[in-house]
């Protein structure tokens, strides 16, 4: 059924459709409408699960991961300071192999205090062992949450579905909300290990030796490698069921392009418009959207970009003292590529500033004209 809803509302719809049994959450702008919507549905008995209104995001993740280890489907949502406070528990959830799903609404981290879109909060969780999916629009938000439960429960690693503050969380768009029956066909009732069996008692997460630690880390890394295939497989099944396709990356017009623009999340939609306009003027431009950040889709990116010489990465995040984080990751993915690459990073939309078609056009013209790339990022301002 088509509904005209916000991205937050879309995420909540997905959580309900997935028969999520346990939700623990704490309010933070701009995630709070997810928490409120689920509370509303718990009150009218349409959520069908148990909600815990915790005193912090840290406790929310503690309760989610322990409920997940007990064998139930668990979800939480947060943003910014909340995901930063959760950081310790994020490592914990992945280390325990708890398939918790979380919606992270990208918001600037303090200080300075602000409430706008910026991806640094979720990207700072890069090494926690969570899978991360970045959404371009409201439809992708609802679909990615449904997929995330399937992926997380297959891989036994937690999965973060990332949507940008305001551009997705609060903007309303027509969203195809899938039928309950179809979702149940796609996502069967939860069937994950129940770690606390009184008839078969064991000790979860005890202290280990150096070599045992290495073994557990190796196993988790193998799970991440397996996740690459699982995400693609789930994507194919999703398309067969719902008719919409999502993979690790998305590409258009890459072959024979003089420049390939690499984007994530909502900047992608704007880039699509800009590229279409410039292609009409005769420019040969390609677009690659990185949807999955962890596991990083190195192979898929190599396949697309091995023969591309000019690449421009546009992104709304920053690792201080280096550059945009997707740009660094892309460069490292291409370091063993046989082709020659000129990869230029552009910071656009930092702090939630506007990234409009004109700004993207300026980036494209700069990248096409550029003889060599700078090692640091180029800061783009709204007005030229």
């Amino acid at each position, binding site marked *: 059924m088509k509904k005209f809803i916000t991205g937050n509302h879309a995420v909540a719809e997905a959580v309900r459709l997935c028969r999520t049994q346990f939700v623990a959450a704490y309010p933070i702008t701009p995630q709070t409408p997810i928490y409120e919507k689920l509370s509303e549905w718990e009150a009218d008995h349409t959520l069908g699960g148990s909600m*815990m209104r915790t005193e912090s995001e840290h406790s929310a993740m*503690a309760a989610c991961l322990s409920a997940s280890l007990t064998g139930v489907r668990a979800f939480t949502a947060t943003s910014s300071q909340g995901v930063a406070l959760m950081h310790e528990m994020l490592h914990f959830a992945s280390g325990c192999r708890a398939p918790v799903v979380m919606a992270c609404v990208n918001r600037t981290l303090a200080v300075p205090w602000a409430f706008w879109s910026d991806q640094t909060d979720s990207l700072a969780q890069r090494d926690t062992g969570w899978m991360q999916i970045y959404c371009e629009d409201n439809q992708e938000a609802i679909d990615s949450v449904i997929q995330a439960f399937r992926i997380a429960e297959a891989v036994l690693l937690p999965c973060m579905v990332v949507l940008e503050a305001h551009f997705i969380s609060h903007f309303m768009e027509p969203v195809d909300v899938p039928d309950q029956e179809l979702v149940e066909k796609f996502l069967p009732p939860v069937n994950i290990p129940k770690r606390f069996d009184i008839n078969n008692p064991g000790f979860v997460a*005890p202290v280990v030796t150096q070599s045992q630690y290495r073994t557990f880390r190796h196993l988790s890394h193998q799970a991440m490698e397996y996740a690459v295939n699982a995400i693609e497989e789930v994507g194919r099944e999703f398309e067969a069921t719902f008719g919409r396709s999502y993979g690790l990356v998305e590409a258009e017009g890459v072959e024979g392009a003089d420049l390939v623009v690499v984007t994530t999340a909502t900047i992608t939609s704007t880039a699509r418009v800009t590229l279409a306009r410039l292609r009409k003027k005769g420019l040969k431009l390609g677009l690659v959207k990185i949807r999955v950040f962890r596991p990083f889709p190195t192979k898929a990116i190599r396949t697309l970009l091995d023969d591309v010489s000019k690449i421009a990465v546009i992104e709304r995040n920053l690792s201080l003292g280096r550059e945009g984080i997707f740009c660094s990751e892309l460069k490292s993915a291409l370091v063993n590529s046989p082709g020659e690459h000129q990869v230029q990073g552009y910071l656009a939309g930092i702090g939630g500033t506007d990234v409009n078609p004109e700004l993207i056009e300026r980036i494209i013209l700069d990248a096409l004209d550029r003889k060599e790339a700078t090692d640091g990022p180029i800061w783009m301002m709204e007005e030229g």
Partner: protein
Amino acid sequence: MMHMEESTRPKEILRSGHAACPGCGVALGMRMVLRALGNRAVVVVVPSCVAVISGPFPHAAAGVPMFHSAFEIAAPTAAGISRALALQGQEDIPVLAFAGDGGTFDIGLQSLSGAADRNEDIIYVCMDNEGYMNTGIQVSSATPQFTWTGTTPAGNTRRKKQIMEIMAAHRIPYAATASIAFPEDLTRKVLKAKELSGTRFFHILSPCITGWRIGEDMAVKMTKLSVETKLFPLYEIEDGLKYTINYQPDDLPVDRYLEVQGRYRHLTPEQTAKIQTEVDRNWQDLMGRAARAHAQDSFIR
């Protein structure tokens, strides 16, 4: 001594071969609590001596499913398991969390308060050895005034936090102090807590042989003296207001408790007197609370 038939003998949940130091008060307390709890339970431990005692991989000291969670989240971890068990139709399985005084009085206080506020269906047991003993011997807010620790070499300047009052302020169904020197009282309280639902809290004073600078055979004696000197009275609080004192102490001077511990070797007579004054004041306050609860109780009747 009471004779127990084989068939009715309590089943030991904490096995021999656990990783506690010889003579550890925490291990004794865990053994008594777990024996009373029985083998149909899930137990959470967090970084502290209780986690060490529970054994390194692949060993497990306890014969119940256990989870070694993070330091400051014993309560929400247990609550998550309890909620999930209820969703699976197993709400009859009690979930118990063991944490140390650091994990309860200090770093875990926020999450414990949150769980108690929501009246989560858990039993929370604080094994209080009055300092960060697992990391050496450092001061916590459960360390009594004037006590030597590695981070208070000149003696602790703060008074011990009154955790029972904090828990009572949450108006949880049940909170009790218990002692390894009074196993019948401890067992009765655990069995009573098991019959209740909602957040149930235990405060168990648990001597640390190395941290308290006492002999390996002194743990039970120390806790016995802590009760008899009124320093650690045995009482329970129902619904946050109904205080009942479970044992009338011998009224020994606190010096009897302090003089045998190396961590108090440096005390001046003035400091000992101050501790005595504080103990007397706390006892008077406790008696007042119990009398008031009793008066209200008879008024209602």
